[in-house]
C-alpha cells in the first residue's frame, strides 16, 4: 500500500493555473486511505467549482498505476479532450504514468509519503524503506531503514528519551526490533555487525 495524503487545497489551487480540469481518482490505495476515491473526487469537484474552476469531467480508475490502454480511457471519457489539465488523486506512480500516457499537463492532488499498509483500520506508514536488498528478518520484520529516522542498522542512537524517538512522538524502532527478536528467540541476529547499504541498488532510472 502506497501511503499518501491530500495536499492543502490552497497549495493545490496555487499550482493549478488552468480553468478546465478533469479529475482522476484511484481505486486502490488512495481509495482505501480515503484520499483519492470517489467521495474525495466528488468533494474535490465541489471545492474546485466553488473556487471558479470548470470541472469538465471525472473518473475513478481501477488503478492509476496500472493502465493497459490510454485510448480506452479516452474513449470512455471523451471529456478529457476538453480539459486543459488533469488533476490526479493517486500516488506519484499513478501521476507519473498518467503524465507520460496523456501527454497533458498533469497535477498531483496528493503527496506520496511512504510504502506502508493498513491493519484493520490503522494506517501503518513507512513499513519498507525500498532499499533494494531486503534483510528484514534480521530485524524481526521491522524495517530499520524506514522505521528509524536515521536508518541505523546496528542498533539505536543515544537520542531516545524514555523509549520515544528524538525526532517525534514515535517509539524507538530499535526497542521494538529488540522486543520482537526476543519474542522470536532470534536475538543473535542483533549481534551481527551490519555493513552499510549498497545504494547503487537504488540508482535512478533503473531499467525494469
Amino acid at each position: 500500500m502506497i501511503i499518501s495524503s491530500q495536499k492543502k487545497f490552497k497549495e493545490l489551487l496555487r499550482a493549478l493555473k488552468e480553468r478546465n480540469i478533469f479529475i482522476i481518482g484511484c481505486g486502490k490505495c488512495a481509495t482505501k486511505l480515503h484520499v483519492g476515491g470517489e467521495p474525495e473526487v466528488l468533494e474535490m469537484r465541489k471545492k474546485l467549482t466553488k473556487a471558479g474552476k470548470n470541472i469538465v469531467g471525472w473518473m475513478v480508475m481501477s488503478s492509476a498505476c496500472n493502465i493497459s490502454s490510454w485510448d480506452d480511457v479516452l474513449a470512455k471519457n471523451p471529456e478529457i479532450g476538453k480539459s486543459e489539465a488533469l488533476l490526479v488523486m493517486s500516488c506519484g506512480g499513478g501521476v507519473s504514468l498518467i503524465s507520460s500516457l496523456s501527454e497533458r499537463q498533469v497535477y498531483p492532488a496528493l503527496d506520496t509519503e511512504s510504502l506502508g499498509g493498513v491493519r484493520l483500520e490503522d494506517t501503518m506508514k513507512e513499513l519498507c524503506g525500498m532499499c533494494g536488498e531486503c534483510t528484514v528478518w534480521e530485524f524481526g520484520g521491522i524495517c530499520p531503514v524506514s522505521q528509524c529516522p536515521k536508518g541505523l542498522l546496528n542498533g539505536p542512537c543515544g537520542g531516545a528519551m524514555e523509549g520515544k524517538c528524538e525526532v517525534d512522538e514515535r517509539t524507538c524502532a530499535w526497542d521494538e526490533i529488540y522486543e520482537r527478536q526476543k519474542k522470536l528467540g532470534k536475538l543473535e541476529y542483533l549481534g551481527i555487525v551490519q555493513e552499510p547499504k549498497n545504494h547503487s541498488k537504488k540508482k535512478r532510472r533503473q531499467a525494469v
Partner: protein
Amino acid sequence: MSFESKLNKGKFVVTAEISPPKGTDTGDLLKDASMIKDFADAINVTDNQRAIMRMSPVAACSILESKGFETIMHLTCRDRNRLALQSELLGAYALGIKNILVMSGDHPVKGDHEGAKPVYDMDSVQLLGMVQKLNSGFDFSGNRLDGSTDFCAGAVTNIELNEIALMKLEKKISQGVRFIQTQAVFDIEKFSVFLDKIKDTGISKSWIIAGIIPLKSEKSALFLNKNIAGIKVPENIIDRMKNARDPEMKGMEIAAGLIKELHGMCGGVHIMPIGNHEKTKNILEMAGII
C-alpha cells in the same frame, strides 16, 4: 605525551569540550581554549552539535592544533556520505588531527536547518570500521591509500544502557575503539552499574572517560533532564541547586565532588560546560586533580 599515550599509561586524563564558532570569528574559540591550556589533555571539538550549523570541526581542530592544542575531532554520520567522511578524515589526519570521536549525530529536525537531508549513509559502528580500514592503509572500497591514517578513535555512550544499547556499544568496541566518552554523569552509583555492565566487553576501565556538566542553576538541571537524552540529574542534586545561596558555586562543588569520586574508577573526565570554560580550572582544583 599524546592523549592516547596518557590513556594507555593510565594517567587520569582531562578532556574539555568546545564548539566551533557560528561564523568565521575564531576569537572566542581560542579564548576558551586558552582557559584550559595548562591542564586539558585534549580538546573535544563538536561537529554541528545538536544539528546546529557551525564551522567545520576539521577547520576548528586544525586552528587549535596549530596553536599547540591536541584535539579530539567529533565526526557525526548525519551530514556526510561515505566519500565525504573518508575525505574529511584524510584531510584531518594530514592537518595533524590524531583523535576522533564518532557518533550518529542528532537528527536535523532537532537543529536550525530542519529541512536538511539527513544523510546517515553509515552509522557509528560502520564508521568506526571504516576508520580501521583507513588506519590499515585502505579505503572503504579496498583501494590502497597513498599514506594511511593512524587515528585513535573513540565512541560515545549513555550511562544507562538497556540490552539493545549495550549490544550496540559492544559492536562499537569490536570496531577498534580506543576510548569511550560518556554522557554526563550525576550519579556515581549508576556509573558503577554501567562499569559493571561493560566489564565483559573487553574494554578497559581506563579507556572510559566520564562526562561532567557543571550545573549553573536549578533551571539548567531541569533543562538537561527535559531536553538532553541520556542525562538524568537526580532529585537530591536538583534540591541542592534549588536551596543553594550561590547556585553556580554549588554546581561547581557538585561537579568537583563527582570528579573526586570518579578518580580511580575510570580513565578520566570530560568537561562539558554550559557556556565557556571560565570555571573549569577552579572545578578541577576543587576536585584535587590539578
